[in-house]
């Protein structure tokens, strides 16, 4: 059934073959690394710019405003103009700050998000790293970012950033558990940790549909916990602007601030992509049981479109959260995790294990 | 709600030296500086008066004297009274603080100290509120500031 979908591995394979025919295998691997690196850098930058633009437009529409509309058509170039502005701004050095760590912190944050991006399956066969422990890898790498945030807060030698960083640490350490457990639910269903394996297992239906209510609960828990993990509203305590002015990046300026800003949006994309892959079938088209005609029409839509549609749907939901809810307090944040999300997801995973044991799922 | 007659009787029992000017908009009482704290406590704790709410505490510089003015209200009976303390020493005016009676007086007294230079005995934290430490006392009538204030 999925054979009709265009497989990007034929394209990447032909590039690989062509490179190997031109140069030695070692050099070919090196060239491929460079190409992938360049493609990702460009994709990363464009995606970040687009997400910032999208967020502004979405919140503007929600708030009865127009949003950016001055630079370019519909303000499309606004974020590029902002980027140029940030590039030209002075990088203010902080006296008595730990300079090495102060400079290092934004890079840690951005590298963490960059690494996580490598495991995201964008379309059929379009996959940089297809680990057999893909879910585990993405979770491990994406939580590296908190190290950067903690370092940023601590090395700034300032009071607001320190509070912000400590909040962020407490927050991510707790919410990591719920994210892990909710992803584990689907791992139990599909029996594999490989992201491509999870997608293949959804060929006859996405897990959110065929996983009964437990999968849906896992999806909701994942949505809430991952919103918290990427420090976005209503869980943006680390940079709560009405309390801590700008939280952990108060002392950063210019492009170093832009790195934090960009990493936040890329993290949102990664979380949404992971959610789309695990719960909504990744690049798998929407299929309904035995409706052959309908399923075929769905197959004609390229897999990359499916992937991005689902991802941006989740991104929209996350934005919707941010622009609706007030911010939680730090103790309520931890209460929500330890009293509600964690027990629910633990019970949920037991239920799922039982379902799978009894072969009650499709 | 007590009228002026009843109020004056109660006050005269507490402070026999108090005087009551005629023809004023509100009931006014002029008391000597040394009696103000006792009178404040009395007026607040007396069940009939129950002046528990200090609307405002301010001062007026009459060039011959400084007058500290207390506007009191009762949240129970809603009657108003104005207490006045006349301080004849303009150079070093001193009066007892009533911040132990009404908590809000602490900050009103700081404001008065800031703008008039009237000092309050037993005030917990008598620092300037708005202005810098070396600025004069701007609401005194003899205050002059050639740099910042344009006279008309």
């Amino acid at each position, binding site marked *: 059934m999925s054979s009709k979908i265009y497989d990007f591995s034929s394209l990447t394979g032909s590039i690989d073959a062509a490179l190997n025919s031109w140069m030695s295998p070692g050099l070919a691997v090196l060239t491929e690394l460079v190409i992938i690196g360049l493609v990702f850098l460009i994709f990363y930058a464009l995606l970040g710019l687009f997400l910032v633009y999208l967020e502004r437009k979405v919140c503007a529409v929600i*708030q*009865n*405003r*127009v949003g950016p509309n001055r630079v370019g058509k519909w303000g499309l170039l606004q974020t590029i103009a902002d980027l140029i502005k940030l590039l030209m701004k002075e990088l203010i050095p902080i006296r008595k700050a730990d300079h090495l760590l102060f400079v290092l912190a934004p890079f840690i944050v951005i590298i963490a998000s960059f690494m996580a991006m490598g495991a995201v399956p964008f379309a059929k066969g379009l996959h940089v790293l297809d680990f057999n422990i893909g879910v585990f890898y993405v979770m491990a790498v994406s939580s590296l970012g908190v190290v950067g945030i903690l370092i940023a807060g601590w090395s700034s030698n300032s009071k607001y950033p320190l509070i912000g960083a400590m909040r962020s640490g407490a927050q991510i350490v707790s919410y990591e558990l719920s994210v892990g457990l909710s992803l584990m639910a689907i791992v139990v269903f599909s029996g594999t940790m490989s992201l491509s394996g999870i997608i293949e297992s959804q060929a006859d239906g996405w897990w959110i549909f065929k996983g009964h209510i437990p999968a849906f609960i896992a999806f909701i828990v994942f949505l809430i916990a991952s919103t918290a993990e990427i420090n976005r509203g209503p869980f943006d305590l680390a940079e709560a602007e009405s309390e801590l002015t700008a939280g952990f990046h108060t002392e950063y300026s210019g492009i170093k601030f832009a790195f934090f800003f960009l990493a936040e949006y890329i993290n949102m994309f990664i979380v949404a992509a992971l959610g789309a892959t695990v719960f909504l079938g990744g690049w798998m088209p929407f299929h309904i049981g035995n409706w052959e005609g309908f399923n075929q029409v769905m197959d004609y839509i390229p897999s990359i479109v499916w992937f991005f549609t689902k991802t941006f749907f989740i991104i929209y939901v996350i934005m*919707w*959260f941010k622009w*609706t809810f007030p911010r939680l307090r730090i103790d309520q944040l931890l209460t929500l995790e330890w009293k509600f999300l964690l027990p629910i997801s633990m019970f949920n995973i037991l239920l799922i294990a039982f379902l799978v044991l009894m072969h009650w799922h499709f | 709600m007590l009228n002026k007659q009843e109020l004056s009787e109660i006050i005269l029992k507490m402070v026999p030296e108090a005087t009551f000017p005629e023809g004023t908009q509100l009931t006014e009482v002029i008391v000597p500086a040394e009696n103000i704290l006792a009178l404040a406590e009395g007026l607040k704790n007396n069940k009939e008066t129950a002046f528990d709410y200090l609307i405002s505490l301010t001062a007026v510089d009459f060039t011959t004297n400084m007058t500290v003015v207390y506007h009191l209200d009762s949240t129970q009976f809603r009657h108003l009274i104005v207490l006045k303390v006349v301080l004849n020493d303009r150079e070093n005016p001193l009066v007892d603080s009533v911040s132990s009676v009404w908590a809000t007086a602490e900050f009103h007294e700081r404001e008065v100290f800031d703008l008039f230079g009237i000092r309050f005995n037993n005030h917990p934290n008598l620092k300037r509120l708005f202005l810098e430490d070396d600025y004069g006392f701007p609401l005194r009538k003899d205050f002059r500031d050639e740099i910042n204030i344009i006279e008309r």
Partner: protein
Amino acid sequence: MNSISKYFSDLFKGISSLWAGMRVTGKYFVSPGQIVTQQYPENRATLKMEPRFKGEIIMPHDENNQHACTGCGICEINCPNGSIEIITDRVPNADGKLERVIDKHIFHLSMCTFCGLCVKTCPSDALAFGQEFEHAVFDRHKLTKVLNQPGSSLKKEAKK
């Protein structure tokens, strides 16, 4: 058992209250309705301020370049901020008598708070509020304006 049912009812109430909020924002996302943002420089042509809008103080002149200001100085006295200065001159009129006319009616826009006392108290209604609101300039001295136009004179009929 009671605490468990309370746990779940709290959970349900919480989620439904969150959903109520999301419905409001979601409704505006789907149909934003009235957009309140003013597209300012673009709508400059159609932008009409209210007739009573206090943009600046002006001195209306008629087609003969005549105004109604006698130079009495009441606006200057009434201005709380000293933003009006009147420089008067004495010139002989037709009868040969010296008569007071304004030389310059100076208005410091930078000091004006638009309280409206000058317009209200002017005995000959020589002042009015203008609708101009784009006052940003690079040089502060440009905010000092002379209200009477050069070569203007007093409108005689206005005096009754």
